[in-house]
């Protein structure tokens, strides 16, 4: 048996979706529903960024669909003046897969959280990434269960004291970027709710990617996990912790660009050094297009739950045929090679006739 060979994708993530010639503004993407997140919730910033960036894509609004699961972030579709489905806890990727496979003319976005995507929906997430369905997944990570009022999540740090873990949580957290790369996701990025510029850049790159794009967004929950990412915002801390990625550029960071990411011969992975100690030539040049996900995975391992170093930007962006394109190609091929003769199908090859 042979699979359909589409070769490398020649399509972008938005090809086949009808475009809008007129002018759109962020206001066009605001629904008439009152936004009901808590005051100070990081979700507001992400919503504003998405509503602000959507007009840049120049798509017909009616051809955009937001699909979500359950959780605070999963209320997102109600606030977008597009088509939207608020589905079941963890199952948004499954619904979105059926939609994307059957409708190549839609831009399908999945909005999910750390509990929704990585706990109850972990199975669907990993298989969606493996298949490379043309979906854009925004994973809001606040490291806590918000809607159920404050239990630890699969991204909470070990020892987290919450309502359900008064003596501290026991489980080792997921690094969502590592998880996605382990599933050989073709597009993986991380950004912060508070960094509107990078958030917009990453969303745009995700939208244009053909296949599954996973974007982890660090998002503050002011009620149950306030300040989880505060060290990444504080001017004194921010620069020595955040490692921003730019394709084709050496991976440097720090207020004076005094730190760099280098290959670690001891482990085969990557580590952080002072540039002055190793020389600029030793600093790794970022290449998001490497087919082997090992490099991007090594990058992802620089970030632990203590956020001592936090890599942001696009870790990996590679071309691999998407599942939905392949599935449609099979149907197309079958239609071209075999007529859809219902009567012949029902009759089959072995019939007999009973006469009067």
């Amino acid at each position, binding site marked *: 048996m042979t699979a359909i060979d589409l070769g490398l994708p020649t399509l972008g993530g938005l090809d086949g979706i*009808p475009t809008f010639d007129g002018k759109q503004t962020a206001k066009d993407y605001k*629904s008439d*529903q009152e936004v009901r997140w808590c005051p100070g919730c990081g979700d507001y910033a992400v919503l504003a960024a998405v509503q602000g960036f959507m007009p840049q894509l120049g798509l*017909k*609004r*009616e*051809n*955009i669909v937001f*699909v*979500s699961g*359950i959780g605070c972030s999963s209320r997102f*579709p*109600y606030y*977008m*003046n*597009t*088509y*939207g*489905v*608020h*589905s*079941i806890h963890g*199952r948004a990727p*499954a*619904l*979105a*897969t*059926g*939609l*994307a*496979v*059957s*409708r190549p*003319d*839609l831009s399908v976005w999945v909005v999910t959280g750390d509990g929704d995507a990585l706990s109850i929906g972990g*199975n*669907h997430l990993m*298989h969606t990434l493996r298949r490379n369905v043309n979906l854009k997944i925004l994973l809001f990570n606040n490291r806590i269960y918000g809607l159920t009022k404050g239990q630890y999540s699969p991204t909470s740090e070990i020892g987290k004291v919450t309502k359900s873990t008064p003596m501290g949580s026991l489980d080792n957290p997921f690094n969502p970027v590592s998880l996605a790369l382990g599933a050989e996701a073709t597009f993986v990025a991380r950004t912060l709710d508070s960094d509107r510029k990078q958030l917009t850049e990453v969303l745009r790159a995700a939208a244009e990617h053909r296949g599954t794009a996973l974007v982890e967004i660090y998002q503050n929950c002011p009620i149950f996990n306030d300040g989880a990412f505060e060290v990444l915002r504080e001017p004194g801390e921010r620069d020595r912790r955040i490692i921003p990625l730019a394709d084709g550029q050496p991976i440097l960071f720090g207020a004076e660009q005094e730190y760099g990411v280098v290959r670690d011969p001891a482990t085969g992975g990557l580590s952080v050094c002072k540039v002055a100690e190793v020389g600029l030539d030793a600093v790794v040049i970022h290449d998001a297009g490497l087919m082997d996900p090992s490099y991007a995975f090594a990058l992802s391992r620089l970030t632990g739950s203590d956020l001592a170093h936090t890599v942001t930007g696009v870790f990996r962006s590679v071309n691999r045929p998407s599942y939905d394109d392949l*599935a*449609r190609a*099979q*149907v197309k091929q*079958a*239609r071209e*090679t*075999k*007529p*859809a003769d*219902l*009567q012949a*199908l*029902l*009759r089959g090859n*072995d*019939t*007999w*006739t*009973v*006469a*009067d």
Partner: protein
Amino acid sequence: MSVDVGDTDSPSPAADHEVRKLDRVVIRFAGDSGDGMQLTGDRFTSEAAAFGNDLATLPNFPAEIRAPQGTLPGVSSFQLHFADYDILTPGDRPDVLVAMNPAALKANIADLPPGGMLIVNTDEFTKRNLTKVGYDEDPLGDDSLASFQVHKVAMATLTRGALESTGLGKKDAERAKNMFALGLLSWMYHRPTEGTERFLREKFARKPDIAEANVLAFRAGWNYGETTESFAVTYQVAPAKLATGTYRQITGNTALAYGIVAAGQLAKLPIVLGTYPITPASDILHELSKHKNFGITTFQAEDEIAGIGAALGASYGGSLGMTTTSGPGIALKSETIGLAVMTELPLVVIDVQRGGPSTGLPTKTEQADLLQAMFGRNGEAPVPVVAPQSPADCFRTMLDAVRIALTYRTPVLVLSDGSIANGSEPWMVPAIEDLPDLSVAFATEPNGPDGTFWPYLRDSETLARPWAVPGTPGLEHRIGGLEKQDGTGNISYDPDNHDKMVRLRQAKIDGISVPDVVVDDPSGEASVLVVGWGSTFGPIGAAARRVRNAGHHVATAHLRHINPLPGNLSDMLASYSRVVIPEMNLGQLALLLRAKFLVDAVSYTKVAGLPFKAEELQHVITDIIEGGMTR
């Protein structure tokens, strides 16, 4: 009346075989899981179909792919009933038992009535194989089988001999012994053979030597019957006098798959099947995956939940979403069925029931998912339930399920079962111009005040909401699992609104148009009514014939629609003094009918993993008519 082959005299050594005419025969092929009994049975079925007999089949096999060789748990069998008139069941007991090894003999001999014909493959009756299944003495060597007509045939040896010229090794050659058995039986019942030879050449097209070996073994079996003197009599079962038309043989799973293909064409919608492999439903996926030329997408998901999730997502996008599973899968899909109830989108969920609870009896049949289908969701989540009555009936049932799903924008549960799924019977091939138009219209225009779109503004007749698919300008809207305001569809936690919406969803399902149930009461004098659903149709019908032949009056009625129930059912139940409901569960339909109609129904139940026998139901019905049984 049937003529039992066991009524014949003992074989005479006449060289010219006597030909005896029978109106029906039941043959059971039994052997080890690796002996190819299902294939053998399938081929004999095809021969019977090609000859024009009416037929019904009952495959019976273990859940293990290859249980330990030669053991009782490894026995696989295939029972076939063929006749010159319209029959309803695969037969209670075989007239002919083909036993390929001691385990098959031991597991099946109790079903063979005295005088029945037993054909045994003697090569497997070794000391070791006999001991394995607990025979202290070789039953072929003592008089324990004296009440049967026993034919001892060294099938493996004879097959090996016939294949000597092919150069195949001993093991490969002996593997064709099932075709030897098929050849022998084909000779004995005057079956056409071209179809089987063609089938074997196609099946083994890539291994011509194996194809040839099987054809040779098949012919050797035929010739063995023809040339040896052990079989004095051959039998003819004339073609059945069925209604005029073109027929083919079909299994329930294939008929469901064809129903799905046809529904897509009749509704002019692409089909998306989201599913996960599970016994005994997987063959529907296998079949549909061959028909992508009809615009069918088959998605083998990572689990049951993703399967139905993708199906619902596709329905949201304007395709016809389908999912197939068995009971354990329904348990996993329940939450998504609830979402489909809430979002009021079309979706068809097929449950090919098997023995439960839990993993239960994967390859055996049962009807114990009825209440799960009716009520197995959180909240008030009504779902239409339809059930096919036989393999061929699956096609029409599927079209009906799709009609309901599309017209009323609702998930529909189709309850098939293992015996329907794998059983086969003749099917009168419909002319496609006679099939119903299932097309529906998507919403295209705003329907609310000031050019707004209200996704939950209902059709006054069907109570269905508009199906507004993404890509339609001006109708952008959001739906989900939260309770919504009547009309606008906006999130609403208002108490009165919730009460209203719960009742509206129920009223929509209650108001679904379903045909009246038809009572079969030929004399018009019956006081006892037997009500069935699903695969009990055959045994109930066959039992009623026997009861009537014995001079009693009995009425029968069969329910295709279990939710909602036919509108005339209440009056019908009330017009009989006694209502009997046989079910392969502990009385689930009886519970529903008692609750709904306050009818003092007699529930007769059995959960043995096998269909009811006509004889068994005959006794039950007769007892009740005679005023005996009230259990």
